[in-house]
């Protein structure tokens, strides 16, 4: 039982780690602005599946790590991630029972929210100019989410994460 629980926890952290890695992986210039928000989606999945274990403060810690890796002002992505995960944790039961297409649309909205919060903070801090490009990740996340959901669900069942 204990070993299984430890394995499960390990599996979750491995997926989160991979999420961060994909987030900072180099991409060709053309698709760079389409980079899906891997880390955000992985966190959303675990927050929906196990909201009592992986929630707002987990998201905050990962957000700080991402800020450091991207060289942004500390706290920007931490705040954005915790806000999004708060919304998810509040409605996790409803999200679990949504049909897949509805869930996907919701994830897209959450990605949009995440990027708008980041843009707003950047705007307040260093006066960034708004470009519609910032919202492209929402579209690519929309495409990725159903597949990511299947993979993560498989991971969860395989390692019996509870």
């Amino acid at each position, binding site marked *: 039982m204990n070993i299984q*629980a430890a394995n499960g926890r390990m599996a979750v952290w491995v997926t989160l780690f991979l999420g*961060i*890695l994909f*987030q*900072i*992986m*180099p*991409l060709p210039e053309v698709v*760079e*602005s389409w*980079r899906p928000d891997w880390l955000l989606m992985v966190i959303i999945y675990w927050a929906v599946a196990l909201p*009592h274990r992986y*929630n*707002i*403060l987990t*998201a*905050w810690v990962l*957000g*700080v*790590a991402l800020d*450091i*890796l*991207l*060289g*942004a*002002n*500390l*706290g*920007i992505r*931490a*705040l954005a991630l*915790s*806000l999004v995960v*708060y919304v998810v*944790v*509040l409605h996790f039961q409803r999200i679990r029972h949504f049909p897949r297409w509805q869930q996907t649309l919701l994830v897209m909205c959450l990605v949009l929210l995440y990027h708008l919060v980041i*843009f707003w*903070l*950047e705007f307040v*801090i*260093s*006066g*960034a*100019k708004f470009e519609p490009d*910032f919202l492209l990740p929402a579209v690519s996340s929309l495409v990725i989410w159903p597949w990511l959901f299947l993979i993560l669900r498989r991971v969860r069942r395989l390692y019996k994460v*509870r």
Partner: protein
Amino acid sequence: MKPIFARGISNQFRLTLAIILSVVLLVANHRLEPVRQSLSSLLSPLQYLANVPGALLDWSAESFATRNMLAVQNKELLRQQLLMSERLQRFEHVRQENERLRALLGSPVHLDSRKMVAEVMEVASDPFHQYVVLNHGARSGVFVGQPVVDALGVVGQVVEVSELTSRVLLLSDVTHGLPVRITRNDVRMVANGTGELDEIELRHVAKSTDVRVGDLLVTSGLGNRFPEGYPVARVIEVATEDGQNYARVTAQPLAALDRIRYLLLIWPGEATQPEAAAAAPADRPAAVEPAEGQ
């Protein structure tokens, strides 16, 4: 094991805590440099790991290069080397002449500074700023504020150092300002980034200032960060509008900021050639004496 009625702290409390902590981080951002540096050192293995696919691609491109391609490249490099060495011969002559003239004037002789080649790591950065990550850090002596150049001109400066990597702010970033002068007439200005890779602007230039399209801008050495005389940009547009107080001058950076791969880190204070430093003071007294006699 699964708690059905989750006790403990509520989500609202957690969110409030997260927001407070984030705001503290945002406000104290500049005081947190040491913390950031150590955390960044801790996380830099992740950056090296993320760099692996790009490095693999490079490696395969190099190892699968055909004999023909290599021959062409080799020929081109030989040609360049010949041109460069011819230029260097003239440069050596001019340098000696310049040193002698400077000694005559009694002004300090310029020294060569220590340099190191660094490679740009292919990792994603904050999309709101223009950064590149280098594969050298505090362990190689890199420091915050260090000037970075490439083969053609100034690239930017180091803004963040971890143990094994460092982050360079490009001179085209909106938050970057660089003191420059025009080589033609020594007019001093400050070049600000615009957020576009191929454009920087010179702000607060009086309309009567003598700036022309095609003028070369070099670092002026004011601000004590960049050594003097490195080429920065070429003026591409000078617009004077009646309604505006100042002329609008835009310039194009000489460094190819969109395809940087290898960069030079410069240590402005440290000389590489001790013999040059030793030779300079020996020359000077003889030259300075007549000036004192007058």
